[in-house]
């Protein structure tokens, strides 16, 4: 039972401990870091990355990847920006969501239905979405949004920033789907052993398609939050965002090769990386070292993860051999 709990929640527990240690260290280096307002601000700014990371976790669990999320963020923002003046706030938001939906169907359709490799498909859509955003906006930023819109990015709910509440809420939903839902099991199965998933008659095409659609919708939401926060929609928003998201997900313990994953782990991964940036900044350590540290952490953690995975399967096989050589009781 303990082995089971460790297997299920071990990594998240380690990550949480790492986060706390990190906060302690950074707090020693720069006490302002631990200021409640700072922590809140910091977390709030991470909401966009975090929300997208939820969807990306599932995609990576199936052994796929989505490189187009950064470009899609910009595109949804631009779509919103151009719709809001003539059509008003609700319709503009719906428009952004529709753009996300279309993007998700494109990605998902090509990957799940046409069975094309996700790396290349999303590489293409990454360029495509960015291009559409640039063409539509002609490179010019859009601003001057209605006042109510600022609520999304800068408002508060029960004393907490709106987007933080949304993010945490979505993390909880994602966690439930990942750990408790049927779809979550199917996702793990597809990433673990696609052949066995076929023989188990699982609806893998539907599931994979929905994942890309869901991630794109989450990206649309993140786009709205981001646009509201900075009060501007730009075509070059989100450059490099996809790599940040992927780094957080891998750091969080989801293997890039697919299989079991953890939404909570990705959540902690986003926080660990984000706090690192912010904290080091407070301590006067330049952004340069933050970037380097992020890279080092990613590589080291991945290698450790791999070794742990190998040790697990090796002990599994040894145990299987051991039970085989035990005398079998009469049937």
């Amino acid at each position, binding site marked *: 039972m303990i082995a*089971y709990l460790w297997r299920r929640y071990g990594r998240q527990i380690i990550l949480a401990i790492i986060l706390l240690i990190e906060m302690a260290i950074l707090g020693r280096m720069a006490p302002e870091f631990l200021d409640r307002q700072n922590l809140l601000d910091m977390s709030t700014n991470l909401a966009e990355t975090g929300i997208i990371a939820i969807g990306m976790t599932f995609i990576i669990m199936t052994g796929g*990847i989505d490189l187009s999320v950064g470009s899609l963020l910009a595109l949804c923002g631009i779509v919103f920006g151009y719709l809001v003046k003539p059509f008003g706030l609700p319709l503009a938001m719906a428009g952004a969501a529709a753009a996300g939906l279309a993007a998700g169907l494109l990605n998902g359709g090509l990957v799940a239905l046409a069975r*094309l490799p996700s790396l290349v498909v999303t590489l293409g859509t990454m360029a495509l*979405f960015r*291009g559409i955003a640039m063409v539509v906006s002609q490179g010019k930023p859009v601003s001057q949004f209605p006042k109510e819109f600022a609520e999304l990015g800068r408002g508060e709910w029960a004393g907490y920033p709106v987007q933080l509440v949304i993010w945490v809420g979505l993390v909880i939903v994602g966690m439930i789907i990942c750990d408790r839902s049927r779809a979550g099991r199917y996702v793990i199965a597809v990433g673990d052993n696609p052949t*066995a998933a076929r023989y188990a*008659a699982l609806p893998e095409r539907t599931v994979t398609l929905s994942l890309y659609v869901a991630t794109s919708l989450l990206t649309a939401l993140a786009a709205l939050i981001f646009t509201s926060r900075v009060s501007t929609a730009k075509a070059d928003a989100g450059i490099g965002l996809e790599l940040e998201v992927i780094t957080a997900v891998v750091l969080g313990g989801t293997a890039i090769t697919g299989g079991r994953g953890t939404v909570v782990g990705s959540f902690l991964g986003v926080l660990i990386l984000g706090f690192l940036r912010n904290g080091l900044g407070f301590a006067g350590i330049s952004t*340069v070292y933050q970037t380097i540290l992020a890279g080092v952490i*990613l590589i080291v953690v991945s290698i450790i993860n791999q070794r742990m995975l190998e040790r697990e399967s090796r002990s599994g096989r040894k145990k299987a051999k051991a039970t085989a050589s035990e005398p*079998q009781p009469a049937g």
Partner: protein
Amino acid sequence: MDDSAKKSSPAAVSTPVLSVRGLSKFYPGVVALDSVDLDLHPGRAHALVGENGAGKSTLIKMLAGAIRPDAGTIAINGTAERFSSPVAARRAGIAVVHQHSHLIPDLTLAENYALREGYPRNAVGAVAWSHLQSAAAEAVHVMIPGMDVGRRASTLSGVEKQMVEISFALAANPSVLVLDEPTAILPHAESDRLFRMVRSFLARDGAVLFVSHRLDEVFMLCDTVTVLRDGCRVWVKPIGETDNDDLIRAMVGRGVSFERDSTLVPGTEELLKVSRYTDAGGAFQDVNFSLHAGEILGVYGLVGAGQAELCAALLGLRSATGNVELTKKASNGDAAAGSVELSGCAAGARVRRGLALVPAERLERGMFRQMSVGENMSIASLGQKSVLGLVRTGVEQRDNLESISELRVKTTGPHKLALQLSGGNQQKVLLARWLQTHPQVLVLEEPSQGVDVGAKMEIHRLVREQARRGVGVLLVSSEMPELLALSHRVAIMRQGKLVEVLPGDGATEEQVLKSALPPQENIPAEDAGRLDGPAQTDQPSGAEASGSSKIKHPPKRSRMARWFARRELGLGILLVLIIGISAAVVPNFATVSNFRDVLQNQSILLLGALGAGAVIIAGGIDISVGAILGLAALAAARVDQEGHGAGLIWLAPLAVGAGLGALNGLLTVFGRVHSIVITLGMMFILQGVMLQTMGGKWILSLSDTMTNIGRGAIGPIPNLIIFGAIATVLTAVVLGYTVVGRKWYALGGDAASARLLGVSPRLLLPLAFAFSGLMVGLAGLLHAGFYGQVQTNTGRGYELKAIAAAVIGGVHIMGGRGTALGILLGALLLGFINNLLVFLHISAFWDNAVTGAVILLAVCADALNSRRERTAH
């Protein structure tokens, strides 16, 4: 176990060239081979016969060096050997022709030959390609006269591949030739050819180990025969002292048999009716049978007879024509209301309607390694156990505990990792999975594969119980005792057809085996080897039966068609088209200066694309090349600023590039982490290092040396274009003509087969990354020289453009495919499209969108092409 009389051969017993003593192999819960002895003598052909699962494949794999024995010795010419790998076995003089070919699909036959026999070198040390061609042709023409060894292995038919494998084995001049079911898919003429070659091999004092189900061939070709059964050797006799019936008796005769249960009587209600069922891939034809409630219908067939494909087709995983009618599930005990035709249904729908398949090969097709026992059990029936998409874990737990106790799965609980269970218990978990779907028709494919006796009996008990409850069971099994003990009727498949149905009660193993074996051809020994044998009556050879005695050439696609389908030609045409349109539409387009500008602008990208292509071909990916470019440019600029000469200015960026590339490759290989993660982390690290080294300041003034490198020209041709051309040619040479380059294709195309041939990523992958780094290092130098400055964000976004150009150029992201020419055309295409957009005053903002669209089109074209190639064979 061994009840033979040794040394009964009247001929002088020469020293055995291969001697196996006490060879054993154990798997969890199962004994694959138990203390087997075998002697092979020069000039003698030794047959190895036995049923499926008798241990023949295991023995062969050990001789081939693919798996290690758990006990026993293998001795060649008296010296005991330990084969650490297939390469070692080959070097020791054992050549094995397996049932399935291991040719690397994207390499030519000549290159596949080189992977086994080594690359011939000329006096200078470079690969002597023409020598290789002729050596490979000489080898292959022994079996297939006139075969073009320049063809890619993927374009060959299954028969041709097998013939090529045989020819490769013979070409190795082995002392021992092992043939594993060589004639299973060979039509008559090809089999004849094989036997003639084997005879001349024997005449040269070679030793042959011949594994076959075709007993007539055994009698025709071999001098001695060993019978294996349940992993043990039954006896070994000279061929003259045995006959067909004696062999069959030895193959199946057993002391232990399972008992029949005569109280189990099938019902009359027809649950499943299969008519005129024919596989789209040709594995089975015109199968007809019906399954009744409470009936256990056994299906027996030798490997390749089509029963595995039949199971997959019933589940809906293979397309087949014909009818499969399943009775509708009766709810609440009412009489079933008619039947439903399953042909149009997907797998999920069939399961919902009550069909279940427990597949063979549970590790590859059944078990989810990262899931627990409970999760593995419930995965197929979650639909019934969820509400609003959420799994009702209480219900799931209850069902799983019930399954565990009912099936007596030995586990500490449903939370245990499924992979940690023994084979027999894993099989029970798989069975439990499907029982939880409450099927009407249960198809079991090799349910006792790799399962110990105790678990076997339990599984039998469970099968009987299902039948008692009214479930119709289709039991596909190679284990005769179990088949005969359980089945009410036994259907026998042979070469794709369901040839006979015997009543289960009273059927003997000899009867079943006789029916399953290919029919006897009574060729007198003297006639054997003649190209035209006696007239054949109905002798199809498996799925690739051909009426004629000619080798089947690949249908439909002639050589010209293959050339046309090549990516490079398509790209070339597209490029000409774009240039043509531009020339027609834009007045200033067709000028030398414009062309020169386009080529110059693309040169830097081209270098990165060539490098990216090499890495992707080898099976990796490097998304840090942008950062490497920046650092290389920085290195060159720094060296320049410090006043060093041209030599160091050249050396620094190239060294930085190659070194960082190699580092990426080494981390990937030794960390055993996917290169995308390693290079992602590296990208962050290198970006940081660059920022730190520059201290936030751009480098704005570079010496004339640098500017000359970047902006100079030789005659009318700018340096950049010259470098681009040199790099393309260099990459083409490396990819097309060097051993390392060709091995990259093997590594990326089929890593598993490559490893069997001794191609390992340890050195090859870092070399590919280093090559890419070198290209990018040069690009960095040129970038700094051309733009005259190095910014803090130099190189950002470069990696993705480089990968895009490579992908458009035909490099398959999964590895193993691509050419330097294609990459060049891809980069040029992007350049000229961009150029056209600029001329049309279509804003630069379209650049990204168009690039993206081109990438997507390229990937779709790739997929269509591969699909067409696959179905053509």
